Structures are given as structure tokens and as C-alpha cells.
């Protein structure tokens, strides 16, 4: 591996922002599942978790954008602009970069529908939002196989931690979905938590 020079700076930037994107996207996934099941984060009011989900998503978009643009601009390997969004046409690592393009396309659908949520209706938004569960694993596979960075050493452990965290959150989400309160009981429950209503059993 050579050091950082003016010719390799973009290549390093692309790899670094790729790693940060993976961490951010994993966090977005975990917090998204928290939002979906009314989970809490220590020190945050329950509904600020939603704000965190959104803001982290936007931050992740910025990092993914830099990751992709630096990869294209860099002359170390040649990646065409079209290969960003059209899967499997890249001359360099067509399969693994193609998965990156697939993940990016799915991500774009999720983000655009979220921005247009008021106009497209809840059902469409919700259906498209499920694509996040497809986009993230594809991004993980892309991360691990596109370059060798994540195949060994500390970055491998980082990748494994991200995977374990998202799988853990997924497990929590599935259990919570089974044991969750019916809709009409949620508000009374939250009111009781705040001392504004007698517990259901006390009524």
C-alpha cells in the first residue's frame, strides 16, 4: 500500500468516507427500528429519536455522496459516472461496485419518498421505506468486497460490530412487534408513565 499523495488522496478519501457511511447507515437502521417500535435512547425524549433518525440519514447521504464522487473523480481506478447508478457495468470490480450501485438506488428511493411523504401518501411511503432492509445488507457486502480494507484487521472488526448491532436491533424490533401494545392503549400507557393517568389495572 502506498502513502497518501496528491494522486491517491481521492482514493483514500473515497475509502474513508465509505467506512464512515457504513457506520452511519447502520446507526440509521438501528434508530429507524427504534422509531418504528417506540423505543428510547438514554437521555433523549422519546420523539427526539425520530429527529435523530432523520438527521443521521441526511449526514449519511452527504458521506455517501462524497464516497461515490471521489471514487469517480479519482484516476487510480476508472469508474464511469453511469456505473454509480447502473449496476454491474463498471469495468473495475463489476459485481462488488454493482452492489454499491444497487444499494445507492434503493437508498435514493427511500430518501426521495421520505421527502415527498406529504404528497404520496402513507401507504406508498411505508412500502418503499421497507427497501431500507434490502439496501443496508447490499451496502455491507459491497463494503467488504469492493476493496480489501474491510477483509482483515480493525476494519473487519468494525464491520462485524455494525452487522451485530443491526442484527441485534432487528431481533429487538421483532420481539417488540410481538409484545407491543395495541394502538389505542399506547397513549394511555404513556400518560400513565408520566403520572397523568392511573394505570390500566387501577381504573
Amino acid at each position, binding site marked *: 500500500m502506498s502513502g497518501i499523495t496528491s494522486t491517491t488522496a481521492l482514493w483514500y478519501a473515497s475509502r474513508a468516507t465509505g467506512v464512515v457511511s457504513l457506520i452511519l447507515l447502520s446507526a440509521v437502521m438501528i434508530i429507524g427500528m427504534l*422509531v418504528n417500535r*417506540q423505543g428510547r435512547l438514554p437521555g433523549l*425524549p*422519546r*420523539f*427526539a429519536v*425520530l*429527529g435523530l433518525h432523520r438527521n443521521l440519514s441526511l449526514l449519511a447521504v452527504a458521506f455517501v455522496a462524497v464516497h461515490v464522487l471521489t471514487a469517480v473523480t479519482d484516476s487510480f481506478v476508472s469508474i464511469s459516472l453511469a456505473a454509480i447508478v447502473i449496476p454491474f457495468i463498471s469495468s473495475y470490480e463489476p459485481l462488488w461496485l454493482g452492489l454499491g450501485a444497487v444499494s445507492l438506488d434503493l437508498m435514493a428511493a427511500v430518501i426521495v419518498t421520505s421527502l415527498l411523504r406529504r*404528497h*404520496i*401518501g*402513507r*401507504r406508498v411511503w411505508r412500502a418503499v421505506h421497507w427497501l431500507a432492509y434490502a439496501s443496508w445488507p447490499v451496502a455491507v457486502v459491497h463494503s467488504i468486497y469492493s476493496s480489501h480494507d474491510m477483509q482483515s484487521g480493525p476494519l473487519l472488526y468494525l464491520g462485524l460490530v455494525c452487522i451485530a448491532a443491526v442484527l441485534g436491533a432487528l431481533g429487538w424490533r421483532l420481539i417488540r412487534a410481538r409484545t407491543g401494545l*395495541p*394502538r*389505542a*392503549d*399506547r*397513549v*394511555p400507557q*404513556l*400518560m400513565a*408513565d*408520566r*403520572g*397523568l*393517568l392511573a394505570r390500566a389495572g387501577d*381504573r
Partner: protein
Amino acid sequence: MSPVIAGATQARQAPAGGGGFPRLLPPPTHLPNPSSPGADLRAYLGLHGPVPYRDSAGALIGEVRAAGLTGRGGAAFPVHRKLEAVAAARPGRAIVVGNAAEGEPASHKDEALLFLAPHLILDGLQLAAEAVGAGRAVLYVRGDLRARTRLDDYLPERDAYGLDRLPVEIVWSPHRFLAGEESALASRVSGGPAVPQFTPPRVFERGVDGRPTLVQNVETLAHLALIARYGPGWFRALGTPDEPGSMLCTLRQASGSVDVAEAAIGTPLATLLDLSAAGAVLVGGYHGAWLPAAQAAGLTLSNAQLRPIGAFTGAGVLAALPTDRCGLIESARVARYLALESAGQCGPCLNGLPSIAAAMAELADNRPHPRVLDDLGRWAGLVEGRGACHHPDGTVRFLRSALRVFGPEIRLHQQGRCSAATARPFLPVPAGPSTEADWS
């Protein structure tokens, strides 16, 4: 029970034929009389004549536009625009619903109108159905009013006179704050629970049973029935050029008395409420706003004056809070009620309103934590504009006005004091938590 109040320029007058004032409610002299022209069909027909059908779809819409009638359920949306939207549907496909869910606990005007002038409502329902070419007419009425209105008797009575061209179905609504929200109504009339639905589609596109649905408050329908008889010019003789006509108001005086009154839009609030014993005035109900009594004394009943200061006429709820009550305690009780009325569907409403209600309860208490005010401001911003319906927005509007108007009271509470001389509740808030069964 029901005083009538015209604008300052409009003296009280006996009705001249059917077009006098009050327009919707029977004149006071008729009130003790069980055969008042509002409810007694023969007397009603003598006063207003038969239903003035136009015998063509759409014919009435131009007159409604010329009259400038707006929805009296609270949103003041131009009626002709909804009529036009629903009239675009294939003839016979659309559904018209008269809305008397009146979920607002402080409002009694729809109830009063159902009791005193049901035939104006039913005429308006038929005329609106004709105007949009609807194939079905529904009256959506708060279930607990069933025993107190004679709606079940009126319909066969009208049939005997051959008044109704479309049979009217009555659907009873749960007594919930949001039961009259358009999409909640559409869900209930379609056989589901009365909870707000996610939009789009809007109900005028796809409402009851997926059909284009015109939802109008029953007072709006009553005005429509009068416009069809006496014309747009007559309608505009009261009110202001921008907000023509009269509206029903529920007046809760500082003395504790409650009246339903008809008032010309633009009537000074001081004409409607006795402000001498009031510290603050609630305008527009529990999604409305508090105003200091001194400020309210200089205002009229009109959105042109109220909207710029963050209030609105809404469904005409006006309440004068007596000076011996604490506005924070009252607001905290209402905030708690509004949080419990959340359908629990949208995260910001489900999680935000209980937090906000808890913070309001702390503020109403002795020596609130100094951080509570900051929390309230932050949380209010987080829930605004985020729900499927207007419930979080309306709640935040109410709460923000309380923080504005009761600032001096907040400082008293921070010192461990309170200006209230009595803990007796003033604003009506239904007791009891909600259950799933309550939504249908």
C-alpha cells in the same frame, strides 16, 4: 337557552318572513314553544317554504360561491371549492355527509342546531347532494345525542311531505375529539373506526367506501339551505365582505353560564362575552388560542382579525376565563385531555403530546422545574406539522397561546404561588381514559 346577537350595527329584530335574524335559530319568542318553526315541520314549511331544488346538478354551486359561504366546522374552507371538487365525479357516485360529530367538548352549537332547526340541516343535505350529483346522503351525528334529538322521527315525517329526494342514513359517531375529522368520519361511515386516516387521498377524492365524499358541518348545510332560498345578496347582508354571513357560537361566560348564540361575523367579542370578570378569553376551542381579556375586548369575531394574532374563529367556541381561575391549571387539564384524544397512530403525536401534557401539568403545579419552559418550546416545535391530521398542530397552537398569555402566572408559579382562588375546573373536559371500543 339561546340568545341571538347581531353585529353592533344590527339591532335585534323580529324575523321578517324566513329571512330575518336570527337566521338559523328560532327567534327567542318561539323558544319555550315546543312547536317552534325550527323543529315542527308544518311551522317550518310555513316559514321557509319547500326545499328549493334546482333540478340540475351544479346549479347551486355558483350561488354558494357568490355568497362566499365558508365551512362552519372550524376550518372556514370555501364551501364552493369542495362542492366543485366532488361534483366532478360521475353522477350518482359521490356521497354527501352532514357532520354533527361535534367532538369539541366546549362546543354545543351543532347539538343546539339539531335540536332547534333540524329541517334546515336536512334541507341543506338534500340541496348539497343535488348540487354535486350525489347518490347517497348521510347524517353523521354524535351518538350520545340520539336520545335528545328526534332525528329518528323527522325523517319519516319529511317523507310524508315528499321533501327528501335521497333517503338519509344516520350514522352515529363516538364522542371523541377527532371523530368529526374528515378522514376519521369517512372511515367510520365506511364501517371502520373513527380515527384519522393518512392523506392523500383526501376524502373529496376517495372518502366513504372509496367514493368522492363531500363532508360539510351541519351548520354549513343550514346556511346553504337558506342561501338557496333567499340568495347570495341576502346572505352577504350580514358579516364582513371577506367573511360574509353569521355563525353560531358557544358562549361560556365568566359567570359559568353557557349559551349558543348566532352572531354576525365581525361582531365585537365584547358584545358576545361579558369581559368585566374575565382574565383571558379562549377563542376557537381546544385547538384555538387564549387571548388576554383586554386584547379580546378590542377584537371582533372574524378570522381577518384573529388569524394575525395566532387565533381563529374555529367552530365558534368563546370562553371567558374568570379572574379567580388559573389559566395554567385550565390549560394543563385541556392538554392532558388532548393528549388522551390522540389516536396513537403517528409518532410525534403519540409520543409528543403526552410529554407536552406532562410538562404543562408541571407548569401548573407548585414551583415547576426551570427547564420545563425550554422543554415545552422544543417539543412543540418537534410535533408541529408532523401528524396525519391537524391534532398535534392544534394542540401546539393552544399550548403556545397559554404560554404567551399566562406568562405572569408562570412567574407566580415559579415563586410557589398561584392566582387561583378556586380549584374548581372551568373548561369542560370529559372524564375517563379511552379504549379501543371508544373509536366506533
